[in-house]
C-alpha cells in the first residue's frame, strides 16, 4: 500500500513538473517600473480601469558615427541598454565582454538591438566611441554607442532605466555606476535588469530575450 502511495505521489509530482515546464514555455516576462491605474472608456462607452506602465521617453543622442539617434531607431525592436565609459577599468570590460556574447547570439536577428550610453560626457565624444566599438569588435549598427549631455544621460539612467550613475572624483576612474543590462520591449517598457558582470545573469538575459521575442509574436 505504501509503495502504491509512493507511486501515486511520484506520478502527481511528475505531472506537476511537466505542467510547470509547459507553463514556462509560454511564460511572460514581468513589467518593471512605476505603474498607475487610469480610467478610460472602452468602445461601448463603459468605464474600464487600465494600467499604464512606465515607458522610456524619447531621447536624442549622437552615436559613434555622429548620427543623431532617437527612439525611431528602436521602433518595433527589443533592445538592451546599459551605461559605461571607455576609460573604465573595472566593471565595464566585463560587462561588455558578456554583452558581446549576447550580441553574437542575436547578431542575425533584426528585431534585437543594443544601446550603450557613455556617462563620461567630458571625454567620450563620438570619435572616441567609434574607436572603442571597433576595438571591442562591433562592426555593425545593431549595437549603438551614444553620447549625450550629462543632464540627459544621467536623468534617463536614474529616472527611466533605474541605473545609478554618478561623477565621483574619489573613484578610481572618476565615475561610479551600476552594471545593469536593462531589457526594453517594443512598447518601450522595462522587462528585466541583469547584472552584466555575472555570467549566469547574462545567460538569463539571453533566455529572456527569446521569451520576449516569442511573446511579442503572438
Amino acid at each position, binding site marked *: 500500500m505504501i509503495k502504491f502511495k509512493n507511486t501515486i505521489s511520484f506520478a502527481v509530482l511528475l505531472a506537476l513538473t511537466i505542467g510547470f515546464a509547459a507553463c514556462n514555455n509560454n511564460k511572460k516576462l514581468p513589467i518593471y517600473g512605476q505603474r498607475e491605474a487610469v480610467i478610460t472608456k472602452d468602445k461601448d462607452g463603459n468605464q474600464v480601469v487600465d494600467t499604464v506602465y512606465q515607458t522610456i521617453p524619447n531621447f536624442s543622442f549622437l552615436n559613434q558615427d555622429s548620427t543623431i539617434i532617437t527612439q525611431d531607431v528602436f521602433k518595433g525592436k527589443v533592445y538592451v541598454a546599459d551605461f559605461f565609459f571607455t*576609460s573604465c577599468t*573595472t566593471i565595464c*570590460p566585463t560587462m561588455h565582454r558578456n554583452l558581446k556574447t549576447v550580441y553574437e547570439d542575436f547578431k542575425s536577428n533584426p528585431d534585437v538591438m543594443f544601446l550603450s550610453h557613455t556617462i563620461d560626457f567630458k571625454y567620450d565624444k563620438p570619435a572616441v566611441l567609434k574607436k572603442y566599438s571597433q*576595438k571591442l*569588435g562591433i562592426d555593425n549598427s545593431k549595437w549603438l554607442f551614444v553620447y549625450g549631455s550629462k543632464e540627459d544621460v544621467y536623468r534617463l539612467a536614474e529616472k527611466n532605466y533605474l541605473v545609478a550613475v554618478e561623477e565621483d572624483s574619489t573613484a578610481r576612474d572618476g565615475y561610479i555606476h551600476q552594471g545593469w543590462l536593462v531589457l526594453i520591449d517594443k512598447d518601450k517598457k522595462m522587462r528585466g535588469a541583469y547584472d552584466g558582470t555575472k555570467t549566469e545573469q547574462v545567460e538569463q538575459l539571453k533566455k529572456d530575450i527569446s521569451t520576449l521575442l516569442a511573446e511579442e509574436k503572438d
Partner: protein
Amino acid sequence: MRKIILLAIFTITICTMIYSCQSESEIELASYVSNGKDIYIKYCQNCHGEKGEGLGQLAPPLTDSVFLKENKSQLACFIKNGVNKPMVINGKTYQEKMPSFPQLENIDIAQVIVYVTNSFGNKQGIYQHQLVESDLRNCK
C-alpha cells in the same frame, strides 16, 4: 638476485630523493599559482579574460609565450606602473592604456606573474618575489 634487490632499493631511494626535492619546489610553484590566480581574478580577468584571451583590441591576450619570455623582467613594471605603448602580441599590434596597480605588494606581483606565465599555454616556472624589487628598479 641479492644484487638485483640492492640495486632496486638503491634506485628507489634515489628516485624518492629527487622526487621529494622536486615536489618541494613544485609545492612552492603551486602556492604561487594558486594565490596568483586569486589576484588575477580580482584585478586582471575583467580585461584579459578567464582564459587569458584578452578583449578584442582593447586588451591583448596573455597567450604569447615568446612575448612574455622576452619581456619577463618588464612584467612587474607593467603591473605596478601601468603601461601604454604599442605591443606586438601573437603578431597583432595592440595599443591601449593598462592601468597601474600601486596597491599590489611585491609578493602579489610575483604571484600574479607566476600565474600568468604558467597558465594559458605558458610554462615558465617560478619567478621569485625577491626579483620584483630589482625588476622594478629597472623599469624602462
